[in-house]
């Protein structure tokens, strides 16, 4: 959420900045002008603000408070200071969950972004029919849990159609969700399948915003398609790619539903991603204080990841300027 608002705010900020630069001494006037807009702005922001306060801010603050307590949901929380956090540091399952999550994010984002970029290019250049473009989005229109269950059954070891085909080809069956090596890659693949169309659509929108004259100049200069891609498309696509990466990486870190309806964290701890671990602590073991502390740590990590991505990939600047 924060990154989205930042994205939206920035162009406006830049516009004012450049206007201020052009008018020179008019800088102060524009500040008072902006202050004059504040009242009316508050009116427009208020409804969203209300939702933000009730559904994000207050629960977040309460979550942070609970992370310093021992709280079993039935009964009152008791303040225990930093104990949850010190326990987390020596909690092997937490570190395992982080490693598993990072592995998932790497596989998920890596494949998803590359495939989505390819699809977006195809949509941009080749597949102009709305039907085909729409079809790419279909997996995203199916609910997460349904997608997970669908693949869960198709990839079942004994009765799944995929393993029937594999064994028909004379290859050994694969325990997609059951083996430690395959569980995370399989879950990552299922989510790539679901999200690639949507991600492609976002990138496709970015591609459309690249002015065609840049391409014309490139072709006049005799640049090869590969060269055009790396020297024009990619640099000009960067702000959109950064936004897409920030949003998908955050979403990817929060993977839960697919794991919850398929492996449930197993085999052993091979797919116990951080959200699954938080859920297990809170709702299975009724340890809400500890789960809150885990959530706070995840929150901090995600904020850092978003910050680093924005900072180093310069997501708020465009080479078009």
């Amino acid at each position: 959420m924060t990154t989205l608002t930042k994205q939206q705010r920035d162009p406006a900020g830049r516009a004012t900045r450049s206007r201020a630069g052009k008018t020179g001494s008019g800088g102060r006037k524009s500040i008072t002008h902006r202050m004059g807009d504040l009242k009316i702005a508050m009116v427009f922001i208020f409804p969203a603000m209300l939702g933000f306060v009730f559904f994000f801010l207050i629960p977040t603050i309460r979550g942070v408070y609970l992370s310093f307590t021992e709280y079993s949901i039935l009964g009152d929380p008791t303040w225990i200071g930093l104990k949850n956090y010190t326990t987390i540091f020596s909690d092997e399952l937490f570190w395992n969950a982080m490693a598993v999550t990072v592995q998932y994010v790497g596989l998920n984002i890596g494949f998803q972004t590359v495939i989505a970029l390819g699809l977006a290019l195809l949509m941009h250049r080749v597949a102009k029919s709305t039907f085909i473009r729409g079809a790419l989005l279909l997996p995203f229109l199916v609910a997460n849990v349904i997608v997970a269950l669908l693949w869960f059954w198709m990839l079942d070891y004994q009765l799944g159609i995929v393993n029937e085909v594999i064994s028909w080809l004379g290859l050994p069956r694969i325990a997609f969700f059951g083996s430690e090596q395959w569980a995370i890659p399989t879950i990552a693949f299922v989510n790539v399948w679901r999200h690639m169309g949507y991600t492609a659509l976002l990138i496709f929108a970015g591609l459309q915003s690249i002015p065609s004259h840049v391409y014309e100049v490139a072709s006049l200069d005799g640049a090869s398609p590969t060269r055009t891609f790396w020297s024009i498309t990619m640099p000009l696509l960067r702000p959109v790619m950064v936004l897409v990466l920030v949003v998908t990486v955050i979403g990817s870190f929060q993977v839960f539903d697919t794991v919850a309806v398929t492996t449930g964290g197993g085999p052993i701890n091979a797919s116990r991603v951080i959200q699954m671990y938080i859920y297990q602590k809170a709702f299975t073991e009724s340890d809400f204080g500890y789960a809150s502390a885990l959530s706070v740590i995840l929150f901090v990590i995600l904020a850092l990841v978003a910050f680093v991505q924005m900072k180093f990939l310069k997501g708020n600047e465009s080479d078009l300027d």
Partner: protein
Amino acid sequence: MKKSLGVAAAAAVIALSLSACGGSAPASTEAKGEINYWLWDANQLPAYQQCADDFTKANPDIKVKITQRGWDDYWTTLTNGFVSGTAPDVFTDHLAKYPEFASKKQLLSLDDAVKNDNVKLDIYNKGLSDLWVGQDGKRYGLPKDWDTIAMFYNKKLVADAGYTEEQLKGLDWNPKDGGSYEKAIAHLTVDKNGKRGDEAGFDKNNVAVYGLGLENSGSGDGQTQWSFLSATMGWTHTDKNPWGTKFNFDDPKFQETIAWWAGLADKGYMPKLETTVGASVSDNFGAGKAAINTGGSWMIGQYTSYKGVETGIAPTPKGPDGKRASMFNGLADSIWAGTKNPAASVKWVEYLASTACQDVVAGKAVVFPAITTSSDKAADAFKAKGVDVSAFTTQVKDGTTFLFPIADKAAKVAGIMKPAMDAVLSGKKPASSLTEANDQVNALFK
């Protein structure tokens, strides 16, 4: 800016007051109104709907609304309901769960009701009603049914292997070589080329039919997976039951049992753990992928319903002590402490625990009701459907049952034991690694 701060402050105040007013209306003392009742087993829903209809006929002022939820959702929804005040008035309760609810004061004690309404506790099968007396000496449930463990077998596969059903009912087991139990399992296993598990040239990596099906590692209780074996070694889960505070997963007797059991997967007689994620163990049985499955009596309906598969039921094998063993588990109906209608709830629970309702349940042949006479009726009802359930009842008759381990912190124990057992069963760790898990479990009670 000041104004907006004021608005924010007002909003915060509203939020605080909203969260503070979770109070409930005063409880009614009259036995009337609508009460909510939850259960998780869809197979039992028709039976209990019948009970509810009969109950309302006898008590026109009370309506019972039944909600069925799958096992996994059941407990989280219930816990959330306790907090948000939307939990059902009466619900089906499990031995693994009620100690925690009782210690968090979420259950209504039934002692007064039992005393005032003169509920007889000796009509239930022996031991069942005592299971529901908490650590504080108060009663939190009235027994509704019980279950034991037996072996479901595919009659055709057994006949093909040259085993008679009588042989299957008289197996014995020991952790050294598995006894005639392992011999049968090995012989019932068939690979892709038609070679049996005990024949030369058996390909353990290409098995078509497993001798023994596998559900999962059984976590810390092993109810249907291994507890019927470990108990014949004289092993118990905890130092005492109910309310044990020291677990015995470090006992060599237990680890020996598990090592033998995990070895079956290694020999190719039982599916590997990794292959069990997905289709249920009973569906694999129904698809003819396993010859024998160990399971609980609540699965009788499921196992006998597969088309094209004739299912027989044999009792669990005799162990080194010369006796069989089966975990004995019982469900009960409990009342939520936050009910707005305790009087009607008590009445409904008493009705559920009476012969009137349990005979109805018996007639549907889905489970064994807690009342002794109703249990016999259920056995007859099963027989009328062509199912011989003596493999389950014999354990009770011969007194070879032992109680489901009742202890506090069951969820946390499972949180440690499930991955630990998974690791052993999948061959990632030796059975001796359970000693470390046991230390972690016992540390919970310090």
